[in-house]
């Protein structure tokens, strides 16, 4: 479906390749700057001016003052958890939305990072935790998880579509059983208890507000990193590979290398998310890397929408709110029905998740607006909508 569309688009005008796809909402209205435009020194102000709108400032201020007005519960368990889960799901959005590879093993990569931090650093499990300095444990954890992600990528890039899902699921389940049954290193079912962030600059980073800002920092870093990366030559080549790997191969791009690199990049995001998630829970157990979590990450990514890096964060907010409050809506063991029904409703009404819902709503409003004053914006908006649906 998407490949066919891409082929048509390529025939119509290959130049559009440089614009990158799927376009960020902003990119459709403002002309994409020529690469290298930000090399002129005075341009940086204009660069910011072009990109930052009232909406961005509003959201930024909102997330920064949020913990000052919210209760510790809403700061920690709802917001911080959403940011952390969103960051892990962002790695899947990057892989799936821009690379066309749906990997179920992103939580496994996150779990590897969490386990490594617990093994090299400090936990309540003596003997299995080496108790090295936290920064060393952290670096090692991120490095090993990234390597593992690249390895998972290397194993699965030769497959397409459902086979990628199968092979990454198999890897995820294998890792689950490894940590469940290995006692010498991973401490089996009980996992690693009391894995906390270090106390730095006199701040206990697991307190609600500091942890929120920690999670926010890394979530923003991940978000802007992905936004930036999909406009770089690497990101554009990756999207080209998503849509037509054979043509990209013929153009001289190394398809396999690009895909493995995408896995590694996604691995870094998942690993940071995984360490934060471990600190959030204060523990890492096989349950964290079990099948339910592997699928939860996919649910979060799909729920939010894979068209834009903000999607997984929106998805995570809905997911966390439902996990916490569904039981207040329906009593007893039926509350999972609510969770399932809402997920189903979102995906049913909008195949590209919350983002799709938003885009359609906006398209509708703009069309109504355009009807009154004849405009040329309409056809281009239309193209963007259809293009965005492809992943």
């Amino acid at each position, binding site marked *: 479906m998407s490949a066919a569309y891409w082929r048509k688009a390529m025939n119509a005008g290959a130049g559009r390749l440089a614009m990158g796809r799927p376009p960020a909402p902003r990119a459709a209205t403002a002309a994409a700057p020529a690469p290298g435009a930000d090399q002129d020194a005075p341009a940086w102000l204009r660069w910011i001016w072009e990109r930052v709108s009232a909406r961005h400032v509003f959201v930024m201020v909102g997330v920064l003052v949020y913990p000052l007005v919210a*209760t510790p519960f809403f700061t920690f368990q709802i917001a911080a958890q959403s940011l952390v889960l969103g960051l892990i799901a962002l790695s899947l959005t990057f892989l799936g939305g821009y690379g066309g590879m749906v990997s179920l093993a992103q939580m496994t990569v996150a779990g590897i990072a969490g386990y490594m931090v617990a093994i090299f650093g400090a936990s309540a499990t003596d003997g299995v935790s080496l108790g090295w300095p936290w920064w060393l444990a952290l670096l090692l954890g991120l490095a090993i998880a990234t390597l593992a992600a690249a390895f998972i990528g290397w194993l699965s890039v030769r497959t397409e579509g459902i086979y990628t899902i199968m092979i990454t699921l198999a890897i995820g389940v294998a890792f689950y059983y490894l940590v*469940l*049954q290995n*006692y010498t290193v991973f401490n089996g079912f009980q996992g690693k208890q009391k894995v906390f962030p270090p106390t730095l600059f006199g701040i206990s980073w697991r307190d609600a507000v500091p942890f929120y800002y920690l999670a926010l920092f890394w979530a923003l870093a991940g978000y802007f990193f992905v936004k930036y990366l999909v406009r770089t030559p690497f990101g554009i080549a990756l999207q080209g590979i998503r849509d037509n790997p054979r043509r990209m191969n013929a153009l001289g791009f190394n398809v396999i290398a690009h895909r493995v690199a995408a896995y590694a990049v996604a691995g870094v995001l998942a690993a940071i998310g995984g360490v934060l998630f471990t600190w959030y829970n204060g523990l890492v157990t096989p349950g964290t890397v079990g099948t339910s979590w592997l699928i939860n990450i996919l649910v979060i990514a799909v729920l939010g929408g894979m068209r834009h890096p903000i999607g997984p964060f929106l998805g995570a907010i809905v997911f966390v709110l439902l996990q916490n409050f569904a039981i207040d809506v329906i009593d*007893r*063991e039926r509350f999972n029905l609510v969770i399932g029904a809402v997920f189903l*409703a979102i995906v049913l009404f909008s195949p590209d998740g919350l983002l799709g819902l938003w885009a359609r709503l906006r398209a509708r409003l703009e069309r109504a607006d355009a009807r009154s004053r004849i405009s040329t914006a309409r056809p281009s908006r239309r193209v963007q909508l259809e293009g965005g649906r492809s992943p």
Partner: protein
Amino acid sequence: MRQGKRVFIRTAVGAAVIAALGATLAGTAAAQDTIKIGLLATLEGPFAAGGQDGMRGAELAVKQRGGMVAGKKIQVIKASSDAKPDVAVNATRKLVEQDKVDIMVGPLSGSEGIAVKEYSKTQPNITFINGSSGAQATTLVNPSPNFFRFNTEGAQWMVGLGKAALDKGYKRVMVIAEDYAFPYSQVQGFMSEYCKLGGKVPVKAWVPLGGKDYSSVIARIPKDVDALVVVLGGADAVNFLNQYEQAGGDKPIVGGSITVSQDILNYKGKRRDSLVGTIAGAPIADAYDAPEFKAFVADYKKNYPDGYPSPSLFALVYYVNMKAALDGLEAVKGDLSDGQKKYRAALSKMVLKTPVGDVRLDENRQAIGTTFITEVAKDAKGGLYNKVLRKVDGVNQLLGMKKEEFKIGSRDEPSCP
């Protein structure tokens, strides 16, 4: 045009759903003169059936008081986990920090209990009372000053079973147990007595919680053992018993406390009949004939016609803990001021009347209570029940050992191959 209309309708429907959801959430506002009690059990995962019955037990304790204690209304807010510690802590945090409960009752399983106990240290103004979790470390290692456990735990529930097994002539046994804190405690409770009296345990098989395939374990059962000590719970026990039956196994079984609980005796498999004669240790026995227990069972049956024929261990233990929470409130006339200090003092001193006898707390706020050694028997109608072989009173958490020589049970402790 048509598409636009459809989108509009969908948006409207979506908005209505979200609004309805929000309205329901907002509806849970608090009233004055209400004491909120959080109730956490596993309504998902391997112990879903047990968790549901636990909730019945806790609700029963509230119902018996007509939902009022010392003139104050008791509001119970429920939460669920799936036997995973992180999920349990998230659910507890939601109850404590969002729903603002005054007292917290739960959770159900061992690892959850340890995690919730650790969390309780960060909330010194809330009193935490255990649900049915039975890990030893919860109260033995770094106990929390505001975590109370009015039920005896996994190891205490097995005291007396080692002797009963030897009396049955089981000199060598194989242990098959789930691989986490609670079964470690159970196996220790059994083995510390069994090994001391000369029994041998050549093989221990630790299987993952929620495992579905036991064929590799069944293949490892040595020919020369006299019986199997099976410490599995819920769906795991049913799966194991079915597969052992299909593999042609015929060794008698010594059960853990939740292996032959009522929810297991009710299952429909073929192996059911061969459960007759299974001995087990537990804090509950269906056929215990004390009038308090009979009254409890009758009350349970009256209130929950859709429940089990007789309350399960989870129902009893949740009942006991919830009753402790309410009796404590009664004792202080609902006074929870001053960081609940008075309430906690009352709980610590209380001699709790339970359907299975009196319970006191030790200095770690852990129950000292009664254990039953039971044997599965068949009644006139063909239903299975646990008949009482022996009743052991005043079992403490150190199993009668001295503090120095006591070690917490683990995969390798104790050992007598």
